[in-house]
């Protein structure tokens, strides 16, 4: 793993943790992504995308419907991706562990597709996007209750490192 990828992973974790804390502490917090030191990321960098835009959206249980909050995040992604159009990216669809293996693979694909369709509808070139589903194989939050499951039901826009 490169240093950049490692950094990216830690940043993602920080965002996920921050989001989780915000959910747990105060549902009315208007902007959980603002928690943490955001200023360090250079504009147009992968860190900038992860920290200042938000690389992921979350889903309700067994749903691939984009919530209003998700569409808000994706609108910011569209704006950023149009500004920095050198990036190609992969949309990773994920499910929580409260489903069976095969179904969750398909559910993750459906979630990734929902994000892809939305980004395309806002003018992002389909050639820049690919999708993949990890089903329930790659949780970011590991515990046996809803506080983790809700973070794992996600679609993550991952900028290609080589872009």
């Amino acid at each position: 793993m490169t240093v950049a990828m490692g950094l990216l992973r830690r940043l993602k974790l920080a965002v996920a943790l921050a989001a989780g804390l915000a959910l747990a502490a105060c549902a009315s917090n208007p902007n959980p992504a603002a928690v943490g030191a955001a200023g360090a990321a250079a504009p147009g960098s992968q860190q900038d995308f992860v920290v200042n835009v938000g690389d992921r959206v979350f889903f309700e249980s067994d749903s691939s419907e984009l919530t209003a909050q998700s569409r808000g995040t994706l609108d910011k992604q569209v704006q950023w991706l149009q500004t920095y159009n050198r990036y190609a990216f992969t949309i990773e669809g994920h499910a929580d562990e409260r489903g069976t293996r095969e179904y969750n693979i398909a559910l993750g694909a459906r979630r990734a597709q929902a994000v892809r369709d939305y980004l395309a509808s806002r003018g992002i070139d389909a050639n820049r996007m690919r999708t993949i589903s990890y089903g329930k194989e790659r949780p970011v939050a590991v515990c046996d209750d809803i506080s983790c499951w809700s973070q794992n039901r996600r679609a993550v826009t991952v900028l290609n490192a080589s872009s």
Partner: protein
Amino acid sequence: MRENDLLVPRPLITRRRLLALGAGAGALGLGWPRSALAAVRVEITSGDVQPMPIAIPDFVGGTPGDTEAARSVTQIIAGDLKRSGLFAPIDPAAYIEKIVNTDAVPRFEDWRAINAQALLTGRLTRQPDGRLKGEFRLWDVFAGQQLTGQQYFTTPDMWRRVAHIIADGVYERLTGEKGYFDTRIVFVDETGPKERRIKRLAIMDQDGANVGYITRGDDLVLTPRFSTSDQVITYMSYGQGDPKVYLYNTKTRQRDVVGNFPGMSFSPRFSPNGDMVIMSLQQGGNSNLFAMDLRSRATTRLTDTAAIDTAPCYSPDGGRICFESDRGGRPQIYVMGRDGGPAQRVSFGEGSYSTPVWSPRGDAIAFTKQYQGQFAIGIMGIDGRNERILTSGFHNEGPTWAPNGRVLMFFRDNAGAGGPSLYTIDLTGRNEQKVPTPSFASDPAWSPLLS
């Protein structure tokens, strides 16, 4: 690649019937007390089963050097029979007669005195040509006669299989049903933290012995399934590009991708005769079912829905397919013809149903059921009637049938356990056993009988 390339014969185990000894010799009819036979003949819907007391004294070593191996074979046989829940091996400390000559008639009164209903005697002998000879005789203690006897010749590395084959012989003679001990399990070995789990394809004997690894853990692998033997496996693997369904030959170590489809392919399973692979293909947000002929490579679309259709499984005669679909909202089990066409929903209970697997007997479908936050393993008739939950808890998933249709294996992940383990449960739901594995384990699939 032709299918023939995938099939390499296993080393042969030759078998011969042993002549019956003693009073009533040759009369292989029902020497068994009626009540005992009735107790062992388990029906799917039966309640409590009284395990049959059986004496299994250490097999005799044909030469002094064979004694240790003979004892190990005895322990494997006793372990198989005990785990089935249908037999209660008697503590050897209670045995009165010491079996030294397996060609002599035992002193039945000594075995009646300790309430053994059946007695298994045997011998293991290394032959001058290096092969191993295993022999057994199964005795009806109360009738005082031999029920069956066999001898087997094989290579020494197959010694555990000889034990399993003998256990299958005992099981079949005393229950009237085929056994399931000379079989293997392919599964996914899991190591490392949950968010970066390393998954390897692994294969082992049904009792957890002889674990071998097929993949190294570089790529994420899921849902391995056996073909008509334990030598060919289909599974899903991640790697470069889209995750795909693969075939793997455990003997030649040849790996082939199944078809060249755009998007992801997953959830594969062989047809009963091994010439087709049925699977899901992802198309946008939908997943539909396709079958591929492994010889012609022709692919047939079986479903065309704006839904998730997955986890397909053929009926044992190959004529029908059960699968799960959320076309009606939540995942439920459906049945359709082998070529697709209209599908009938068969699961109507509360909750959602997934991972249907058709019983080798043809009369039942096992499934994973989610209801009120619990994951259960159950069975139902192929029309969805007579649903019975065998086990339920935080997370149970992915049943696979023993080839005789009497036992299911599945994986269970208890809350806080950190990872899944394999379990077996019989159709009464009363005999649940943990299957030993080196690490966490999931996605088990049971092979057919090897002999």
